């Protein structure tokens, strides 16, 4: 983690603006994401109507002044559902990223530093990693019943091992550093060593990891809803919209395409932002990817 200064790319030595000029895609991704988050927060002010109100007489209408993106098979406004659906994706992305990084950090720090715990914790993580994430999430949702919180927890659980492994690998390198040995030798207490000396080394790769977790969480939420094991159908989410849109896909493909495009653009932006952060915060990892 402590790369000699000579190997750092010039971007790190200069400010944010030159970095964004060098990576214009990152800037664009940031703007798109900001727009999506703002739209999600201020959804009622975005020219929307009630995303759940049905008007059977207005079913499957093409885009018009009243319905910007047309209506779905129940006569609901697609634009409103799209904007309110952003809320679900944003909430799931942020919540899963924050929770899995938080929990993974604690588990990884402790496992990496306390050797006897390491073997046990890592076996549990190996077991969790061996179960395909989507299947584990499906199973968790199907036993606990569908709600936004169940979905968040179900997506979070399979993400934890990845974070734990990352944190542990950092801890294992850092714990041999002279400054940690020095802290140990002067009798610094364990929690203090972990928080003051080891934690700061984990932060840059974790920020990068958090963006990837957020992207994959949004993707998994959409897949779960699409399969009927995700966000309850009554909540407008992009995954639910795709699931409903597929019924009449051959007649009116747009109802499936809009949420699909929204998902792809959002996840793409998060991934591009993650790559940008990686290049800036974690040059060693950037070289390996």
């Amino acid at each position, binding site marked *: 983690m402590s790369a000699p200064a000579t190997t750092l790319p010039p971007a790190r030595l200069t400010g944010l603006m030159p970095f964004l000029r060098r990576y214009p895609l990152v800037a664009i991704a940031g703007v798109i994401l900001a727009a999506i988050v703002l739209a999600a927060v201020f959804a009622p002010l975005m020219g929307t109507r009630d995303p759940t109100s049905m008007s059977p007489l207005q079913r499957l209408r093409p885009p018009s002044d009243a319905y910007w993106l047309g209506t779905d098979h129940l006569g609901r406004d697609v634009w409103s559902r799209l904007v309110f659906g952003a809320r679900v994706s944003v909430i799931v992305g942020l919540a899963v990223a924050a929770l899995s990084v938080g929990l993974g950090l604690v588990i990884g720090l402790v496992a990496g530093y306390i050797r006897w715990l390491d073997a046990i914790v890592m076996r549990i993580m190996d077991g969790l990693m061996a179960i395909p994430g989507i*299947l*584990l999430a499906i199973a968790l949702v199907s*036993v606990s019943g569908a709600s936004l919180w169940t979905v968040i927890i179900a997506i979070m659980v399979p993400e934890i091992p990845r974070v734990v492994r990352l944190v542990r690998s950092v801890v294992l390198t850092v714990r041999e550093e002279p400054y940690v040995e020095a802290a140990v030798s002067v009798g610094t207490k364990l929690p203090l060593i972990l928080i003051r000396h080891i934690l700061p080394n984990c932060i840059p790769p974790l920020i990068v990891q958090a963006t990837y977790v957020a992207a994959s969480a949004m993707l998994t939420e959409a897949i779960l809803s699409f*399969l009927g094991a995700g966000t309850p159908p009554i909540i407008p989410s992009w995954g639910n919209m795709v699931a409903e849109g597929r019924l009449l896909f*051959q007649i009116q493909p747009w109802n499936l395409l809009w949420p699909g495009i929204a998902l792809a653009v959002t996840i*793409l932006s998060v991934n591009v932002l993650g790559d940008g952060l990686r290049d800036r915060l974690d040059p060693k990892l950037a070289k390996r*990817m």
Partner: protein
Amino acid sequence: MLRLIATRVLSTIPVMGVVALIVFFMLRLSGDPAAILAGDTASSEQVERIRVSLGLTRPVYEQFFGWIVQLLRFDLGTSLFTGLPVTTLIAQRIEPTAMLALTTIVFSVLVAVPMGVLAAWKSGGWIDRLVMVFCVLGFSVPVFVMGYFLIFNFAINLRWLPVQGYTSPFVDFGRFISQITLPTLTLSFIYIALIARITRASVIEVLGEDYIRTARAKGQIELKVLFRHALKNAAVPIVTVIGLGVALLIGGVVVTESVYNIPGLGRLVVDAITRRDYPIIQGLILFFALVYIVLNLIIDIVYTLVDPRIRY
């Protein structure tokens, strides 16, 4: 060498044990398993009957070890909806899934490896950038969006290929190929992105080595330098990712089979969710985890046989 293989095989036992523990307690952590299995409309007598028939009245450790013994006899339980053993259902549905996985892996490797090598060779150039853009897209576009995009263009608009369905290659090979093409392309997208990215990264690293310079200096043609000298030495991380990517593939299979209406294991999971047929979900998780663990075990052992640099 034999001892080494034996150690690796033995080391998978605790992982399988943990998987079994997770699957076992998942149903119990979320409340009364009998009530979950019975569904929302069941009466209390029905719930009680399920509880007794599943042995849920016994102590938990007894239940767990009983279940493990059952698993060791390849008994994954019985489907609540059809009454058939889960292993029978898996055997009935495995062919389409195995075929889809196979065509996807073969196609992805054939496309992704040359793509990654080319990107590494022209690192920083426009080909490299194009490959990287493709990789980011591959990780960002949801499988079902890709699926419907392909169906819309190639099946509905151009009418080149059928919209959905599956025919066994042993029945009608031509039909099999026409029906499996779109699902394979759909599922390959993310897998190609994954493999191409790692191939690019590990070939770039190898291209800086002395033996590559030597090969070039002795006048070896560039194609041979890339594919014989560089790719061979960069193979370990690439093969590792192909193995680890199987987890991603399994998730993708579930979605792809739903989009293309393929009667495989993925459909079995989705149908089980709607019917709350928990033994099937449990059985399939165990089955997929086993496939994943065994596959990665084989890859691990093959390394040690093929690459003399790896010694445990």
